[in-house]
């Protein structure tokens, strides 16, 4: 494992990830998540739907970043193909609130990554897409930091559950050790989601049409309800 992966997945990376609960706050407000077992079911569902999609898109972005670095198509790293991958993310994110959260986190991560791992491929992405979706920013940052598409997918899959898990600890006052124990039990799921994401993503560049598009209807509803909530602690 590349050490940069530790930095990318650390909640202390100042990229604003701590402000997002990925629907957890609203799931708690609605009563659907209220203890460790219900949080476990929520996180597992989130990982195998939204997590699987974002992991595949992140792996695709990382592989694409690598291909533009080694064989720039237009002479400069960061080709117009970013726009096509961006459209693939949009098409897989029906909820406007989730698209907004994804682009907000992507913009912040891109800004941080350009200072931490300066590289032409990140500059190229910023020039073409100042507000990239989070998986595109994460995949490109992972490549700039020296990580592989598989490692990038792992970071994305972990990101899909780690932020929501800590949000639940804060909102419900759960035992943080119990919640980290729960994250540990999801390790085999993280491995499986990562492997599936890479199978789908790495050999498809630039044919991204068949990438996973697993939807989670409840997450869509929660995201939109959260966006209209009067009182909220988290952005999403």
């Amino acid at each position, binding site marked *: 494992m590349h050490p940069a992966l530790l930095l990318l997945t650390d909640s202390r990376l100042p990229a604003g990830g701590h402000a997002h609960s990925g629907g957890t706050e609203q799931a708690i407000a609605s009563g659907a998540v209220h203890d460790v077992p219900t949080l476990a079911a929520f996180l597992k569902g989130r990982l195998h739907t939204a997590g699987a999609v974002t992991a595949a898109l992140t792996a695709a972005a990382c592989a694409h970043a690598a291909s533009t670095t080694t064989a720039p198509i237009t002479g400069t790293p960061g080709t117009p193909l970013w726009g096509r991958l961006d459209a693939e993310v949009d098409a897989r994110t029906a909820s406007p609130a989730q698209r907004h959260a994804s682009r907000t986190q992507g913009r912040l991560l891109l800004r941080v990554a350009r200072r931490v791992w300066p590289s032409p491929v990140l500059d190229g992405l910023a020039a073409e897409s100042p507000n990239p979706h989070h998986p595109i920013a994460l995949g490109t940052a992972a490549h700039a930091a020296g990580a592989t598409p598989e490692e990038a997918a792992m970071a994305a899959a972990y990101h899909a559950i780690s932020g929501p898990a800590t949000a639940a600890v804060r909102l419900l006052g759960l035992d943080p050790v119990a919640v980290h124990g729960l994250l540990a039990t999801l390790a085999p799921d993280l491995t499986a989601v990562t492997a599936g994401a890479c199978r789908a993503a790495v050999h498809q560049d630039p044919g991204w049409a068949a990438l996973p598009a*697993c939807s*989670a209807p409840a997450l869509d509803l929660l995201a939109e309800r959260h966006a209209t909530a009067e009182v909220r602690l988290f952005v999403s």
Partner: protein
Amino acid sequence: MRARAAVATVLGPGGRTVVQRLASAPPLTLRQTGPYTVHLVSTAAGPLGGDRLALDVAVAPRTTLELGSVASTLVLPGEGESEMLITARVGTGATLRFTPEPTVLAAGCEHRLLVRLTLEPGANVLWREELVLGRHGETTGRCHARFDAIRDGLPLLRQEFTVGDPALDTSPAVHGSARCVGTTFLTAVAKEPRVADGVAVLPLAGPGTLVSALAADAVGLRSRLEWGERTTINGDDSVAFGGDGPVPGLQ
């Protein structure tokens, strides 16, 4: 059983829609029930495991097709997976309303439901899909549904939905305690996102809207989806389906 059915329209004299091709292939039997209305009539049980069914829909530019079904589809177990592949192309200025009755996933079934929808510029579409997770009192079978809508060569909506993994089915992130899940894809553009009990109106990044709903039963699901469809359509003046009022765009 392998079957491939097809329906196609052409623009007739005076700008009227003519249903030019109606190729039934049992168990997919097509019956024309109105000037531009066609219903699927199942003439055999199933689909059963091992069946490979396909339906091709071609709506020519500036024509209209309304496609429904007379009854819900009951997917049953059998030898291996069953598959239903629907390929639809909607031409410039054409209108397609696809509103079949729900697909019921009987216990033990292994189903794949694939939709490939290609839209030319100015196509109007309303595409409803409803899944019922098992018959009354029964656990659900397995189903993998995938919906891809491409407009002017760009992806507009890609959605997959997997049913039948108990750990995921009951997740409050996926569909919790709901027994019925459904979506309606519309090319009409909702003015803003809306959310009500068990249903959300989601304006897409491109020109279209997804209504996504969860419910305890099929009746509740239908009413939630129809609320979302009305909410979308009433907010969009350029739309072809006008609810109770006159229906501009339909001949």
